[in-house]
């Protein structure tokens, strides 16, 4: 690669990285500013103080929201991984009649927009008395066609002879799943888990519908609440709240970026 080309590439990379990251950086900077500074339209805070963060914690039960989100996202992550594993295993290793049709039905569920079903779903959860519960927040999302598809693609790469070897040895199907398929598919499972967690953490509309109780709100709804209460005066506090919301997912993403990229592509195109 010529020097000239390198310089051009690095310049382009730096400029686009700055532009892409700017809103996040901006939020960080504002979160350290005092009210007056914000109103003057400054970008760099004169002094990095954490007063906005402690204010954010006091104004709304942010820790409680973070905890709720963590519980809900973890439940959905666990549920999706387990349910998708079982379904993908059946679609890959159990040759029962009607399997292909059933798989098509699974895939076709990706075409039903979740928003088109939210009214009856809300009614279901309400009539079961599950509003404002972790159960109601998480269980409707446990089954996921995309995850099943992603895992099936991975399971299909396991040589069929491995399955046959377990049959010859008399090892049951479930033990084959537990002792062979899952350990061999660790990378894809991690990808799916990260993806599930991110999506669940960032969920917005469903928690908005099924939570009324302050104690059960997730962090996304909490942030919206905070913003609508504080909007005109305390931007620094709102931004501190926003930073606290995105920090866990950003860290998760930075750690798992490479895995996500490899794992998700596999599901997308093969």
């Amino acid at each position: 690669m010529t020097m000239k080309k390198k310089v051009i590439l690095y310049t382009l990379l730096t400029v686009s990285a700055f532009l892409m990251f700017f809103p996040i950086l901006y939020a960080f900077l504002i979160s350290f500013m005092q009210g007056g500074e914000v109103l003057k339209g400054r970008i760099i805070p004169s002094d990095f103080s954490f007063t906005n963060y402690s204010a954010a914690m006091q104004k709304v039960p942010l820790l409680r929201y973070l905890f709720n989100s963590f519980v809900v996202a973890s439940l959905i992550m666990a549920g999706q991984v387990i349910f998708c594993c079982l379904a993908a295993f059946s679609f890959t290793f159990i040759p029962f009649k009607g399997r292909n049709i059933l798989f098509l039905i699974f895939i076709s569920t990706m075409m039903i927009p979740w928003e088109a079903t939210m009214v009856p779903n809300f009614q279901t959860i309400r009539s079961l008395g599950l509003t404002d519960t972790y159960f109601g927040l998480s269980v409707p999302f446990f089954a996921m066609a995309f995850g099943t598809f992603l895992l099936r693609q991975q399971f299909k790469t396991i040589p069929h002879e491995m399955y046959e070897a377990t049959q010859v040895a008399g090892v049951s199907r479930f033990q084959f799943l537990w002792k062979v398929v899952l350990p061999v598919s660790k990378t894809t499972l991690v990808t799916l888990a990260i993806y599930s967690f991110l999506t669940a953490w960032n969920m917005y509309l469903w928690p908005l519908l099924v939570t009324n109780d302050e104690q059960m709100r997730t962090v996304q709804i909490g942030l919206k609440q905070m913003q609508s209460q504080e909007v005109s005066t305390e931007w620094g506090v709102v931004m501190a709240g926003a930073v606290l919301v995105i920090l866990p997912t950003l860290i998760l993403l930075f750690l798992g970026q490479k895995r996500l990229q490899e794992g998700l592509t596999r599901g997308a195109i093969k």
Partner: protein
Amino acid sequence: MIAVKDQIRVRPKSKRRFSTLLEGLLYLLPSILLFAVFLFYPMFKTIYLSLFLTDAQGNTQTFVGLEHYIQLFQSTSFLSSLKATVLFVLYTVPAGVLLALGLALLANQKLKGIGFFRTIFSSTMGMSVAASSVIWLFIYNPTIGIANTIIKTFGMTEMQWLLNPDTALLSVALPTIWMNTGFSFLILLGGLHNIDSSLYESGKIAGVGDFYSLRKITLPLLSPTLLFIVTVSLINSFQTFGQIDILTKGGPMESTNVIVYSIFKDAFVNFNIGSASAQAVILFTFILAVTILQFKWGEKKVHYQ
């Protein structure tokens, strides 16, 4: 030599096949159950509800047939909602995919420190709708936000980004593109990684230029991934809600009242559940049509490795 077991169960073939079927279904049962309760049942229920007048609780009162649909297509409010949705899709999908593709091509170079840039480019995947919207709400703030500061340095007059019906939808589209770039970038970069490097090497030996190999090697081989991203982006775009709820609440003058927001308002604010259900059915039809078109088109045009 090991003694052979005396008792060996003999299983008739059909019985074995039946037990395989049972076992297969057992593993699928959790997913099937949830899909049935939270996807298929509500989908049919939505269609059913769209044919009735309901009370505020969603209990059906009188059968009205296609009345809701007829009214919707006569109501200027719903038509403008449709228009906003289509415009929003047009604003966000092509621009978003192109941006992600550009970044992916840029980040696919073998350079020192490229991992850092990749992480930055994919970072918006970790951004929630709520957090992103709150940040952009501040960016768009007419008096203290940075959007107007930048505009003023270029000598233009201040703008009322989200408060002006002419610019509001575009102003919501911009953060949406930004938010979706992370995911699209990650998938496209993975797609680029999967292209066999020997293809580029043979291109290099043939002496073709960078742009030529982009057009003749990269894009055709990336087309399955691109198709996937376009489909996902389209579907996501049709389902936009959070940005609207935080940034504009469907205003000003309903210029950002996209279809999901309209469904939400009719169902949970106006308690007109029949009409909301009819809109949901229309959304479903839209997405179904788009997906089927994509597949049809994809089969013909997309190159598979």
